[in-house]
């Protein structure tokens, strides 16, 4: 048997609906026999009548409704059709859900699923990676699973957490990533994982970029360098201790992310290492991000806009030469 990243997300939701009466799924086209634009809720509406609900195209109201339901003890999962459209719900997510616990002492346990990241031909409005933006605001937890196992266990964790969770699931990984079976164990939320051990350079990454980073490490291994690759798993909280521990072993740092370059997760990783672990560094840290333009449509442009294993490897070689 093999299971994809996307199937893991569906299975996690099936389990959540089965095990917890408080859970319901709210989003565009998630219900009926359709099961969502990517089929992440396929068959769930039939299996759990009245708990997988189609909504109008109203991202603000979808999240507002989830917040209200959460206040009354429910555990809603909101599916955005694409991460990009969650911009319409920013106000509810950042200003309502994100401030609520701080203001009133009452937390808002909602999970917002964002089908994120670029795929060929998707263009400026169906490709965005918004984790950096959500991580910037207080009051939210931001998950960026990079493996089938994490896609499954972290979604279950997201719903269990009493605070709002932005769950960034990568569309490129939906069908590409496969595992033999669903995991029985889980890593704790907020802890990074060493995806590959090494001694010469640390690459910190997450989500789809983890896989580009691993390929780059593979490539460079042929040249005699051992790269350690850290999978952040959640970008907020960011496991600074794990990153520092890795840099302590390697003395070099490259941060790789798919979101836009200004600020963001990679800048945050470098800022933390520079301020808390400056003495650990043998070379200037560097980062690779998408380009500072909207995300292009044509595959020739897109594959250059997005960080690739080639660009990551080139940057890694440069740091290794220093």
């Amino acid at each position, binding site marked *: 048997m093999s299971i994809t990243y996307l199937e893991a997300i569906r299975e996690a939701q099936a389990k959540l609906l089965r095990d917890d009466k408080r859970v319901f799924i709210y989003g565009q086209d998630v219900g009926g026999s359709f099961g969502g634009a990517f089929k992440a809720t396929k068959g769930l509406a039939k299996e759990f009548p009245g708990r997988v609900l189609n909504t109008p195209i109203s991202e*603000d109201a979808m999240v*507002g*409704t989830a917040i*209200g339901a959460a*206040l009354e003890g429910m555990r809603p999962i909101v599916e955005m059709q694409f991460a990009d459209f969650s911009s319409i719900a920013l106000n*509810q997510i950042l200003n*309502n859900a994100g401030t609520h*616990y701080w203001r009133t002492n009452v937390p808002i346990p909602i999970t917002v699923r964002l089908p994120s990241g670029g795929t060929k031909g998707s263009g400026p409005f169906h490709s965005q990676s918004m984790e950096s933006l959500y991580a910037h605001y207080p009051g939210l937890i931001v998950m960026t699973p990079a493996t089938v196992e994490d896609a499954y266990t972290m979604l279950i964790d997201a719903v269990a957490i009493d605070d709002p969770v932005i769950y960034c699931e990568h569309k490129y990984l939906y069908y590409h990533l496969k595992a033999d079976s669903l995991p029985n164990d889980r890593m704790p939320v*907020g802890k990074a994982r060493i995806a590959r051990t090494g001694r010469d350079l640390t690459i910190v990454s997450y989500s789809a970029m983890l896989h580009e980073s691993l390929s780059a490490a593979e490539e460079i291994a042929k040249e005699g360098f051992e790269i350690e690759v850290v999978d952040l798993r959640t970008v907020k909280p960011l496991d600074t201790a794990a990153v520092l521990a890795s840099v302590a072993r390697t003395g070099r740092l490259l941060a790789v992310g798919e979101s836009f370059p200004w600020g963001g997760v990679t800048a945050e990783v470098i800022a933390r290492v520079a301020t808390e672990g400056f003495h650990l560094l043998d070379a200037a840290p560097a980062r690779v991000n998408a380009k500072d333009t909207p995300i292009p449509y044509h595959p020739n442009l897109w594959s250059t806009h997005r960080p690739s294993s080639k660009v990551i490897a080139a940057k890694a070689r440069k740091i290794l030469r220093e």
Partner: protein
Amino acid sequence: MLQTARPRKKSQPKAPVHEKYLEAFRWMLLTRTFEEKLASMYRGGRITGGVYVGKGQEAISVACGIFLQKGDIFAPLIRDQAGRSAFGEPLVDVARTYLGSRTGPMRGRDGNIHRGSPRDGQLAMISHLGAMVSVVVGSLMAKRGRGEKNFIGLTAIGEGGMQTGATHEGMNIAAVEHVPLVVVATNNHYAYSTPNDREFACANLVDRARGYGFEGYELDGTDLAQCLDVIGTAVKRARAGRPPQLVVASILRLAGHGEHDDFSYVTDDIRKEPFAIDCLQRTEAFIKERELADAATLQRWREEAAEEVENAFSAAQKEPVPNGEEEDWCAISTRDLVDEIE
């Protein structure tokens, strides 16, 4: 079906008085007394940030709160002190929030009108107008899902806030979900300094009820009897499982947008309109005319209101204010997931 109650010419002299009329008047009086004190403290430099009062809107607001019961959800807005009090918000919590008391519901973390007690069904508004509409919808869906009965949600909005996308999405989704929601929209003829002709171009805001699948009503917000009658009816109909209800009330905002605002942009002509009448004065005149309470009783009510206001402020003033050094600066409840940033 659109059910539109046209404003009546004048309360009939011998028409029976609503059973909640005097109780409502006392909440209005308490609100006016409280907010006058608040404004004077603001002018004296004793309040940090803004002060927003509901002068002229007390009759509408009290009618929003007075029919609500335990188990209902109320999402009030800027000018809803009367309704908040009628639904059970302790006055001391208002004073605490304006003074930033550490023991108040918002603990100095949020101020003025941005307060609530969500566990008691009093939602804490965020500034962004219209954002609370869909939140109430979600709470009502959850209650229905749990098998609760006989509950409703009520939220207030200004004619300015009615023009946001959030309000539109919220009202539409309320009707789609067929939840027992009452939206009370007050057209006080200004959004901050902007008059109606730059806010919307439809003939009448209540016509939107039909567009959303709500039942709609209009009322004269200077007339407490109408406010109680129409909003009370809307609440009953929502409880009875009718579609969501929209009430559009007309008044003039009789104060600045906030106390910092001299509202000199309010034209003399508009101040002469019938909707510019002060609802509190009108209510008191009606009480005297119909001899619902004698002069001594009215005087006693005034004194009691003043005393209650005094007590609220003096209690709140004795409480400690927050201290930045002692704050835990933690925006999530899951403490082991706090992102430790140096």
